[in-house]
């Protein structure tokens, strides 16, 4: 799920109208340590940098506390790699990979 557009398509559930993808979301630079939350792997941690706001999931994630600046750490996957469990400053959260692909994260070493 490196392509945010694909993550977006996956999330168009329940016949919602897709908002057009916004320029700033696609252009989020993949330089350096920036990745999607769904790409975070074993033992990695990071800081939330932005969310794909046009998707309905992102509002729910923000309400749970996944706001820019929130620190998080990958804990583990369930069997077959999905869903994933992430420890954040606001508790441990479990989410499916396609839901995690709306969050951009700056990796920390």
């Amino acid at each position, binding site marked *: 799920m490196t392509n945010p557009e694909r993550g977006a398509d996956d*999330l168009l*559930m*329940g*016949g*919602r*109208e897709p908002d057009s993808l*916004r320029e700033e979301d696609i252009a989020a630079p993949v330089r350096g340590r920036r990745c999607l939350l769904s790409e975070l792997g074993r033992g990695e941690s990071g800081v939330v940098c932005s*969310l794909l*706001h*046009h*998707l*309905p*999931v*992102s*509002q*729910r*994630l*923000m*309400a*749970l*506390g996944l*706001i820019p600046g929130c620190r998080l750490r990958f*804990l*583990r*996957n*369930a*069997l*077959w790699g*999905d*869903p994933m*469990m992430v*420890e954040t*400053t*606001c*508790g*441990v*959260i*479990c*989410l*499916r990979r396609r*839901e995690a692909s709306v969050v951009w994260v700056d990796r920390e070493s």
Partner: protein
Amino acid sequence: MNKRAGWWRGHAKADVSAKRVVLIGNPNTGKTTLFNRLTGSRQRVGNYPGITVARKSGELRLGGVSVEVVDLPGAYSLAASSPDERIACDVLMGRSGETPALAVCTMEAAHLQRGLFLACQIADLGVPLILAVNFMDEAMARGMSFDLGLLSSRLGVPVVATSARSGHGVDDLRATIQAGLDEPRHMTLPSWSDAVHDATKFLAREIPSNHRLRESEIRRILFDHDSALFDVVGYPKAQRADLLARARTYLTDGHPLAHESAAHHKHLTSALDGVITCQRPPTQPSRVDRLLTHPVVGLIIFAVFMFLVFQAIYSLATPAMDAIEGGFGWLAEIFGAWLEPLPVFQSLVCDGILAGVGGVLVFLPQIFLLFFFVSLMEDTGYMARAAFLMDKLFGWCGLNGKSFVPLLSSYACAIPGLYATRTIEDPKARLLTILIAPLMSCSARLPVYLLMIGAFVAPVYGPTIAALTLFAFHILGLAVALPVAWIVNRWILKIPSHPFVLEMPPYRCPVPRDVLWRVWLGGRDFLQRAGGIILALSIIIWALLSFPKSEMTGSEPAVQIENSYLGLAGKAIQPLFAPAGYDWKLTIGVLASFPAREVIVSTLGIIYRLEGDEDLPSLAEAMRAEKWASGPRRGQPVFTVATALSLMVFFALCMQCASTLAVTAREVGFRYAVITFVYMTALAWMGAVLTFQGVTALWS
């Protein structure tokens, strides 16, 4: 005693003039415990009209004055994309009854900012607030300390530290509620920017004023992705989207959909500065947790645990169920002897009413036990872990990890299974689970399988194949259910699905009082809401089987069944079942077992004019000896392996359980009970015909 009587019947109507206090908060913040502490046993559970959310309210006594407390479902925000989620907003805005005088927002001390975010949204609707900070002890054990006085003065509302578990701070909260009712206090929020005001004004202009949306509601429509509040206006989708896009062009500062979150969090970050001090870094997850959530080990532990739970439900409930059945059999005998001179009344009381009441009560032990284990799993925090482990198995067809427990418990009986779906927050996943749960091979199907396999499979193919057949029929239900769920999810159910995002609550020791209370409420609810319908249905079925009274030989039950309305119907629709290989006797048996599938065994016993109804070997012999009396297959045996398999497939897939239909109707509405009945019966008929024709074709 008056009040106690009302409490039992659950109709303790609160005083009409009583003020309403709303209890709201994030999930896992001890809201229910607090609700129980505040209202004691003066609670009632109902449904909000038209949706599947249970409406819990109770009565709080404050110095002789009665206050109605409404417990709203746990939520992280007021953003609502479905009618089920809209309920919080509607109650807060007074669209669902009286406008609340006060909202008590519960939050977990360790995650104060998240709880306060919800509080900000409530305050923005203009409802006076009290903040209840729960689980202080837990947070302090983690090395956090709080200056709640500072927080209270910054936000302008009372902040009460509580520990719902020990009851600490509850009296304080009660006093604060009383003071808050006399002198309501609103949380201070920074005023919205001009951009927001312009956008709201624009929307208010565009939306016709007769919908009476308040400014704060219009702000929700503006900020939320696809607000269900917009349903009030009822524009077509495209028009809504266009209107919102135009309104949101005013919000130029950042993404419009992040505007509210950014504003509230900015306010909260400054309000919380200096309130929380944290001495220690967050703790690592414990070794036990790592084991319980391990992708492989965790699943094995969960499987063993569930096996033990159902073993316990089965073995603990059976004696109680036997006792209830025995008790009703005894009552039937007494009333039978007493009403001897009035045969119609005797039959109505014994076969109709007592059988019906017994049929309701017999489920109670299982429901009590299931609610006990489900409450334990939820309150300890294990349910969320189990849902995490199981999600992948169910996610592909629109269900989620939480569907697992209801489906598994449906293997014992669909009734407790349907009640267990209340743990699923996602309305779509819950509805899907309810629709497919009756397909799981419940214990009432077992007698049918045993009869058929014992009579036609075991004698020919030996015990190994017989055991495999039995196992295969237990898998058949699930194997059919998941694709059905997928199809329904893909093409029929047009409810948007919630994203599967779950918080893993810390492991906590359950409060025994709460667990027992929930067990009691679950059982009471079942008796009140499903009991009546089950009773009514049993009396109707009794009437269909007993009338018209056969004149020739009243004592012969087989003749009575044959000439009853149901028997006549069986004969009339036999051609429908001919492709499945059933003669008219079998068709009557199938029809008579629509109220409860295990009835087929005794009905077949009666129809084949046997003395001992449940004397299986002789029934099996009678069935093997049965020949077609007429038609193209005249003289050939009615029962072949093909007929037996087709009958078993029919019973595996058919909705032959009036109680399940009654509970489905009570839980999600009459419409879905009809849908379940129609789709399962159609599926069963097709399955039976395919099996019979397929097996016959393969054999000749």
